[in-house]
């Protein structure tokens, strides 16, 4: 697709907290309203919608509940954090195909521990606490044995990374501390207390080797973005964050532990990375800031390796000497605090922060940031997007 053919022209969000006390539809409406206001547009302008299938507000609700009654393109994605870049790419495709002229994408979720509002796993609260007494699907191959929640799955992956590459808990801790150092500057972040490595190592184990401070927050909140064509973007009020390029991929190596190590995921990741950098005509060293999917600290290290910021296995050492810390580090990562310290919105807040970096409005602004890299979860599916001035 043509680089810079589309741009993100509006970003919005709700407050982020452990428990907002409102429905996910209201959270969505708040974030969407803010994004449209940011863009200087109205619901009547929106004719495209790219959504997750786990949203409690469906396409069928969108017209009735969100006032989006002019939609003529819509698509959905599964897989939460693995797809938040793919959502952007579908929006840019719809624009390029002429199927829509203004596309909205959003994520609204009440995943605060106390925010459950129903028995369904996508009805707020912790999905794994709602696992039925009898299970089918992939859960049957791990839950009965005691591997239930994502932190436990990632712990198995993290342990192997430590065994194979010598990754240490200092490396994991640095990911968490760097994110927190950014959140300290961000008034919207849920966790703003400064964190040292000692603080990280003192936090309790959830599933070894992962501690509480290795895990993303549990939060209620929503984010929304508005995209349009480059031509239209020029007339709107904000500096456009152009979509330079992106890739979206799905394969059989989901993060479910029995698949992760069986299939040669590194080869596919390398192929996706090569496709992205080759097509975009830039290199990882050209990137000014990176928003990586930090549901758990080890996955940030793996993302750095997967996308070519460092060699396989070298994610840990990459974090040394403050490389991830903005605004002046070698590669500031998650300058809003990420899922670890701002809020866990399945990565959508990463998109909002990436746009801020391009606009120059981040609370941890990388000077003269022109190229921002955003990556979805390093499991299946996966993908990445490059935003630029």
């Amino acid at each position, binding site marked *: *697709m043509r680089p810079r053919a589309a741009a993100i022209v509006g970003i919005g969000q709700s407050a982020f907290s452990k428990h907002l006390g409102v429905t996910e539809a209201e959270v969505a409406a708040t974030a969407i309203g803010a994004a449209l206001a940011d863009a200087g547009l109205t619901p009547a302008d929106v004719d495209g*919608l790219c959504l997750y*299938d786990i949203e409690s507000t*469906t*396409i*069928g*609700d*969108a*017209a*009735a*509940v969100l006032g*989006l*009654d002019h*939609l*003529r*393109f*819509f*698509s*959905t*994605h*599964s897989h939460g954090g693995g797809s938040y870049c*793919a959502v952007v*790419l*579908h929006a840019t*495709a*719809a624009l*390029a*195909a002429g*199927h829509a002229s203004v596309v909205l994408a959003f994520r609204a979720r009440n995943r605060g521990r106390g925010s459950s509002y129903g028995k369904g796993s996508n009805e707020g609260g912790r999905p794994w606490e709602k696992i039925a007494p009898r299970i089918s699907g992939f859960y049957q191959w791990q839950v009965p044995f005691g591997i239930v929640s994502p932190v436990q799955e990632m712990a198995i992956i993290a342990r192997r990374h430590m065994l194979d590459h010598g990754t240490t808990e200092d490396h994991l801790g640095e990911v968490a501390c760097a994110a927190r150092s950014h959140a300290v500057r961000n008034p919207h972040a849920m966790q703003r207390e400064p964190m040292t490595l000692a603080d990280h190592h003192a936090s309790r184990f959830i599933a070894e080797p992962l501690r509480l401070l290795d895990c993303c927050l549990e939060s209620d909140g929503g984010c929304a973005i508005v995209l349009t064509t480059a031509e239209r973007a020029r007339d709107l009020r904000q500096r456009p964050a152009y979509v330079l390029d992106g*890739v*979206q*991929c*799905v*394969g*059989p*190596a*989901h993060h479910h532990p029995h*698949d992760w190590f069986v*299939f*040669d995921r590194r080869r*596919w990741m390398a*192929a*996706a990375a090569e*496709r992205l950098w080759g097509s975009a005509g830039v290199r990882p060293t050209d990137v000014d800031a990176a928003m990586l999917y930090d549901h758990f600290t080890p996955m940030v290290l793996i993302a750095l390796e997967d996308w070519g910021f460092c060699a396989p296995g070298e994610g840990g050492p990459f974090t040394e000497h403050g490389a991830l810390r903005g605004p002046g580090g070698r590669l500031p990562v998650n300058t809003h605090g990420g899922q670890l310290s701002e809020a866990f919105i399945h990565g959508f807040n990463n998109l909002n922060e990436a746009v801020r970096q391009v606009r120059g409005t981040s609370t941890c602004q990388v000077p003269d940031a022109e190229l921002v890299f955003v990556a979805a979860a390093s499991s*299946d*599916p996966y993908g990445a997007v490059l935003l630029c001035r």
Partner: protein
Amino acid sequence: MTPAVVGIGTTPFARRTRASASALAARAIEAAVRDARIGFDEIDGLVRFDRGAAWEYDLPGVMRLRALDYYGAVPDGPGSAPALVRLAAMAVSLGLARVVVGYHARTEARPGAADVLHAAALLARRQEPRVAAITQALRRAAARNPRALNGAIPPAAGGCAFVMSALERPGRPWRKPVRVLGSMQVAIPSASRHLVAWLASRREGVLRAAARRLYREARLRPADVDVACLYAAPGALVLPALGDYGLGERGAAGLPRRPRVNPHGGQLEASLDGINDVIEAVRQLRGEAASQVRGARIALVAGSPLEPTSAVLLGAPA
């Protein structure tokens, strides 16, 4: 690049199945790939209905241990079969993928589907004498269809798949490629969740306006349509659909002569959210249908009007 359906495949349709949705999907995809005469390693995109039982990584055999470069979904429901075609066509036309497989499989009827169908049928039968004639015509069509099982309850277990690629393939022309001439989606409120808003959208002619957009994009008129595969309960929703898409003669009894509507019996063939309607339309345009409409050049496939829906116009091989 001109998107075209270059392969189709289905499993047999059944009332009950021991197979998983993934197994049905895999078999349908296998058949479509064979029909397209391509290798599995040529597939680089996969699209499906969301929330479905057959996720991409349940189909590792399909992917042959590779990652695919394009994936996405349409809202799970009977409005979405044409949207699946649209999503695949978009990827091919933009060069995001070269060969996109679209699939849908079910192992049982959608909960409440039968109730909706029967309620809609009862409602319509009371209001409109023509509906009874239409219902009879669809039953006769199903009786002529070797794939339909015939009986009160249509089979709801089975899988269908199609292969979408660019028409232009120098040196190796496709066998009977069916072109995607135009497509539309429209976010009608779900009748089951927002009845008042749905009724308002009917009054405002929202679907009718979207249908006009579809014809404009394809540079066609309703009179050009030879075959119409409309997602409609037996009889009940066919009339509104004909009106929405501007089809058929006024004052006609039963189904119009032109276009031929649901020559396969529609949802009487199978209750698979309309994915089988896509397959029938392609067969008709290839001249390979069981109840072949002579000289079929243009086919319309339309999803359920009771929720966010879609429609697509397909053209016969040149």
